[in-house]
Each structure stands twice: as structure tokens, then as C-alpha cells.
């Protein structure tokens, strides 16, 4: 398929980025939430710390959720097995990071980053390849059958978690942060944790990369069209299943990347860590609207910021606050923030 190519031969105004389909209102939600939190929290340094923590967590959730929202959007496939790729990604990273402990402990940020980059490549390649198998063996036989999808993908998740126990043993695995991105940068009274800044950076790279692919390549054009009306994309002569396999593999690899980031954040790996975040991932996808990368991004930031703010202000209601947020957003927009694109 020669679809990954720039096609701008019509001599018209070039693609604009980001393309928001004219609806910018939801974009204001994140700054509004951040500003609203300031008077409630009161102290400026605490507000900065919590906001950065929320943004970092939001970026990690976004990375984990972004592929899944396209999988939902493109083929209406309910993949509850997505959490497995998060856990597997984190465990695959240990194959690189534990042997490269010397690089991780080196007093050289470039060696630290090189070790992490290598771990990310291995994790993404591994989860991407597993995604290919998972799609073929587990998802494909149940296209169009939602109940079976839930059961079968849950089954896949359980098998994957058991495989982790078999391969890595039942005990937790420690995954310490490298020297260079441990600790905090202190500016006046404000402490900015280095790893959180790093996570925000990685999240932005993923966001920009996805927007570039979606808005500036032919593959992205087909994906956006397919999310809206997959039948018409087939009638135009494109094999939506091949497109879906690509998206599924990319989504699995992104889950693997999210798993590495999440594992380094926790610094301790357990087989069920992917499943733990899946509740948030599903909330984010529903808030954002199935199939919308922007919606997923905004939803992830909202959910994570809110979790951090309420965790500070009213720790008892932290998870409830996200359910409440989801309900409010669905009352405002029943399809989610950017759910209108899907029929």
C-alpha cells in the first residue's frame, strides 16, 4: 500500500495543523480547570507541583489511551485486553534497563536517556508484534460481536498477566529511575520533578507525532475517514481491515510505551499494573469521544489534573471526581467532547 505519502499536488493551501474541525470550546476546559484550582489550593508552589503532576500523569494516560480510542473508533472493537500491552511494555523494558543498570546510574544524562530510549524501542517493538498476534488470534474472530469481544479480550488479558508471572516470576520488580531524571529542579519555592517534565515532553512528542500522521499523511486521512464511516471507506476501494491491523499494532505499541513511562513513574512493576490504569483509560476515551485523538488528549489531562487536585483537596473523593467529570461532560455532549465525528 503506497499510502504513506504526502499528496499535495493540487496546488491548494496546504494542510493546517492542528486541525480542530472548527470546534475549539473543549480546548478551554484544561486551562479553565487549572485556573479554577489555584484559588482552591491557595498556595502557589503546591498548585504548580500538583499541576505538573497532573499534566505528567495525563500525558501518560494519553499515550496509553490514544491508540485504543482509534481502535474503538475504526472498527467498534471493544478491547479490554489493552491493559496487557501496558504491563508487557513495562516488563519488556526491564530486559533492557536492568542489564544496563550502569548506564542508568551513570552521572550522564545522555547515557540515562539512551538506556530509556533503547528500552522504549524494545517495549514498543515487542508490544507491537504482540498486538499483531492478538488482533489475528483474539480480535479478528469476534468482529462485530461486542459481548464476545469483551469476554475474549478479557480472556486475553488474563492469559497475558499469567504469562508475565511465568516469565518474570510473581514478585514485584523494582525499576528505579535513572540518576539524571530523578529528583526535582527547585525554582524559588517551587519544586519541579524532573521525571514529570520528561513525561510531559514524551507526551507532547506522541501527540504531535499522531497529529502529523493523522493530518498530513494519506494513511492518516484514511484513518480519519474510516473512524467516521468505515463502510464508505471500503466502498472507495480500501481494505479497512488492513487499516485496522495497522492501527491496532500502533495502539499496542503506544500502550507499551505508556507502560514503560508508567512503570518508571511507579518504580515498581506488577503484572496487574496495566489493568489498574484501564479504568482511567476508559473514562478518558468516553470523555474524549470514541475515535478522537484530541478528545482523548483533553480528556486525559482533565482526568489526571482533577485526580491530583482532588487528591490534595479532598482525598476521599478522588476517583469519584472522575466519574462525576465523565457524567457532567456526557450531559453536555452525549457523544463525548469530540464524539460527533463517529456516526
Amino acid at each position, binding site marked *: 500500500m*503506497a*499510502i504513506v*505519502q504526502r*499528496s*499535495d*499536488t*493540487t496546488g*491548494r*493551501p496546504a494542510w493546517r495543523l492542528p486541525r480542530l*474541525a*472548527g470546534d475549539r470550546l473543549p480546548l478551554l476546559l484544561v486551562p479553565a480547570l487549572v485556573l479554577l484550582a489555584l484559588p482552591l489550593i491557595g498556595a502557589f508552589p503546591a498548585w504548580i507541583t500538583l499541576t505538573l503532576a497532573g499534566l505528567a500523569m495525563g500525558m501518560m494516560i494519553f499515550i496509553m489511551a490514544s491508540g485504543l480510542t482509534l481502535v474503538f473508533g475504526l472498527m467498534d472493537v471493544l478491547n479490554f485486553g489493552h491493559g496487557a500491552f501496558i504491563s508487557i511494555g513495562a516488563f519488556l523494558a526491564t530486559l533492557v534497563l536492568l542489564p544496563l543498570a550502569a548506564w542508568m546510574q551513570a552521572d550522564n544524562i545522555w547515557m540515562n536517556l539512551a538506556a530509556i530510549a533503547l528500552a522504549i524501542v524494545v517495549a514498543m517493538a515487542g508490544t507491537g508484534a504482540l498486538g499483531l498476534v492478538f488482533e489475528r488470534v483474539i480480535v479478528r474472530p469476534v468482529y462485530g460481536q461486542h459481548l464476545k469481544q469483551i469476554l475474549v479480550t478479557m480472556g486475553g488479558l488474563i492469559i497475558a498477566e499469567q504469562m508475565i508471572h511465568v516469565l518474570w516470576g510473581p514478585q514485584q520488580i523494582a525499576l528505579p529511575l535513572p540518576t539524571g531524571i530523578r529528583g526535582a529542579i527547585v525554582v524559588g519555592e517551587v519544586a519541579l520533578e524532573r521525571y514529570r517534565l520528561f513525561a510531559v515532553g514524551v507526551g507532547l512528542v506522541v501527540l504531535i507525532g499522531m497529529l502529523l500522521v493523522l493530518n498530513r499523511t*494519506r494513511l492518516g*486521512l*484514511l484513518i*480519519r*475517514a474510516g473512524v*467516521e*464511516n468505515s*463502510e*464508505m*471507506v*471500503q*466502498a*472507495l*476501494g*480500501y*481494505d*479497512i481491515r488492513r487499516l485496522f491491523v495497522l492501527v491496532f499494532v500502533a495502539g499496542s505499541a503506544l500502550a507499551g510505551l505508556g507502560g514503560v513511562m508508567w512503570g518508571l513513574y511507579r518504580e515498581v512493576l506488577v503484572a496487574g499494573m496495566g489493568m489498574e490504569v484501564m479504568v482511567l483509560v476508559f473514562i478518558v476515551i468516553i470523555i474524549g469521544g470514541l475515535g478522537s485523538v484530541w478528545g482523548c488528549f483533553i480528556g486525559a489531562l482533565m482526568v489526571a489534573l482533577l485526580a491530583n487536585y482532588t487528591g490534595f483537596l479532598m482525598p476521599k473523593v478522588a476517583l469519584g471526581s472522575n466519574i462525576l467529570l465523565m457524567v457532567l461532560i456526557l450531559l453536555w455532549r452525549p457523544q463525548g467532547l469530540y464524539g*460527533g*465525528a463517529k456516526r
Partner: protein
Amino acid sequence: MSDALLQLSGVHTHIGHYHILQGVDLVVPRGELTMLLGRNGAGKTTTLRTILGMWRASAGHIAFDGQEIAARATPEIARAGVAYVPENMGIFSGLTVRENILVAARAGAPEARRLQWVLGLFPALEKFWNLSAGALSGGQKQMLAIARAMIEPRKLLLIDEPTKGLAPAIIGNMIEAFRELKRTETTILLVEQNFRFASALGDHVAVMDDGRIVHAGAMAALAKDRDLQQRLLGLSLDSHQ
């Protein structure tokens, strides 16, 4: 009929438990425009969807350009040279007008002369080139759907009720556009309710009722024969004229 581009023989289609097409025999001659008429629910849309493999024929044969396509998947049939304008137009409303056209150009980008020609037929599209297609009016969306189907040469165009909901003046424009398209000798199978439109453009006509073809012949003959119109298409016909 020696030179049929498309030929359906004894085609049956079931949707769920319903037996919708009950032995459709239809010949679509190459290079000409065949009108498919019939009252609501007769099975016209189902016929087009069956040709394109969106419903699987449960019995019968569909020959397209000498090949049996009844068992093929939709993308494969489309790539063999069939373009489709569905009843609901199938516009991607989140994409711009330009992107809607681009996505239909399987070569990657439309050929410049052809694009110029198509935009000449539907000037509104050029005006709203970078606008999101969801913002177009109903008539403009219909033009976009048709432009999209003809942006690259295809052997066969399947078009489902292009005049649905259009004002009479726009229908006039649409007739002009199809006349222009007919000059390229594209084979067209067009479903229609509007008899004025159908008789202005059709070379051949087939009339469906209850999942079968009940009449087939020259459009001109049917246009002249009021009694036959009455019998095949019923009284509702007068309201279209």
C-alpha cells in the same frame, strides 16, 4: 445484449430473516446510463448494495466486465472499477471538501485536468474547498458525493437517488452535470424517483417491484407510454412531473 458491462442473473439477497431481492435479472449496457426506478421499498438500494458486495447475494450471479463478483469483498469490487454514491451520500463530514476528494483518488492525488473538469461541473466545491464537508448544504453535499465518485475514471458508477431533497433549479444543474459525464461514456446505473430527471437522462430503464425487475427497455419508450408508466410506477408518478 452482447455488450453488458454488468449483468445480474437470478440474484437473491437476504437481510437477516428478510428475503429482499427475489431473483433480480438486470443488464447494464456498457457506456450508457441505465435508470433503476420503482416505488419505495422495492429493493433498489438493496440491489446497488448487493452489486458492491455490501450485502452478500444468497443466490445468483453478478458478472462485472466478464468476471463473477458475487462472492467478492467490497474493496475488491470497488478497485475493479466501481464507484458508489449512496442514498445518504456517505460524505465524511469531519474532513474538508478537499480531503473528501483526495480520499477517493486511489492514485494518491487527483489528476489535475480531471480535477479541473470535475470542479468545473460543480463550482461550489471549489469555493468551499477547504471547508469542513459537514458545513455544506444538502445539495452541495450531493455534488461532493458525485464529484468524489468521478474524480478518477471508473468503469461503473452506482448512484442512489441523487436528486433526493434537491430544489428544482439544482436538479437542472445536476442534469447538466450528468449529461457532461455521459459524454465520457462512463457506464452508469442510477436509482431515481424523479421521473422528469430519469427521462431526461436515461438511455435504458429497469423498473423494480417487490425485489424483482418487472420491466426493462429503452427509456424513450417508457417516457412516451403514459399507460405503461401508470401501470409500472403508479399514480404517484404525476406528483413528480
